[in-house]
């Protein structure tokens, strides 16, 4: 009887990749599950300045000239907000940005430096945080540098 084994064809398929693929797949799945990505978020910076009232409620040092205040009063209903700066009113970020930019330019033209203007956001106690971030962003876009929150009205 002829043995079949003697007729087996020998071929060289290179190194066995199966263990490598196993290990690499495990590493890949681990990294996909354990890793987190931090690219979708950023931060709006606020250096809370000296204020006699409100959030930055510290006494100003002697001899310090107080900043020119610019109060933004923010009120809201369930689905919209209204910001009032002096006699001007706005209920969306682009309009408020352009109004604030114009005010900053007017103040700059009278000799007030931007660094000496204190923007104070004065929200109602039920105004949503989301709306306040919109107002804060409008002030940043208008290139104000000192922005803070005041106590709720």
């Amino acid at each position: 009887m002829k043995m079949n084994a003697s007729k087996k064809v020998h071929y060289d398929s290179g190194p066995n990749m199966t263990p490598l693929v196993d290990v690499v797949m495990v590493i890949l799945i681990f990294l996909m599950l354990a890793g987190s990505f931090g690219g979708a978020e950023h931060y709006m910076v606020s250096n809370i300045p000296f204020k006699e009232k409100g959030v930055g409620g510290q006494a100003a040092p002697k001899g310090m000239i107080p900043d020119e205040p610019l109060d933004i009063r923010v009120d809201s209903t369930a689905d919209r907000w209204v910001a009032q700066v002096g006699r001007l009113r706005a209920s969306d970020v682009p309009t408020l940005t352009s109004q604030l930019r114009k005010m900053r330019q007017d103040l700059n033209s009278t000799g007030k430096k931007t660094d000496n203007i204190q923007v104070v956001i004065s929200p109602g106690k039920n105004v949503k945080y989301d709306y306040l971030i919109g107002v804060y962003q409008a002030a940043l876009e208008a290139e104000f540098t000192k922005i803070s929150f005041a106590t709720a009205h």
Partner: protein
Amino acid sequence: MKRHSMPEMKEGGVNVTPLIDIVMCLIIFFMLVAKIGVSTGAEAMDIPESILGVKIEDMGNTLTLNVRPGGGDQPYITALVDGKQQELKLWEPRPGGQISSPFLEVLKRFRKQNKDFKVIIRGDKEMPYRYLEPVLLKCAEANVKNVNFNTKIGSTTAG
């Protein structure tokens, strides 16, 4: 004369070379991009969107506060303090009728340890300002001068 023939070639199964190439690329990508074991204490919540904002490279000097509406007028604040995620109450009664503020104590301790201490506020976008206000007041009381509002990078904002 006996002739030697070439050994018979046989298909060795599925060709895994392209698979290994792609998987290796993915591994290198994940190793470079993913942050593993770095926890700032940030919790998943619906934070507001903003167009403007900066990246904070050095998170070592920061304390991330997760602020949500709580019971009554007190916000529900959590943060990673001493390696443990814990709730920081704005005020709580102590035996003897005194009122303490664990939140303020933590802020003061961090501020004392590090002059460049920063606070990051992650607030629920639906949260009314009455919950955020006491957090900002306590930050001012603890003399924390740098407060950062964490927002999603977006193309639009409210309004």
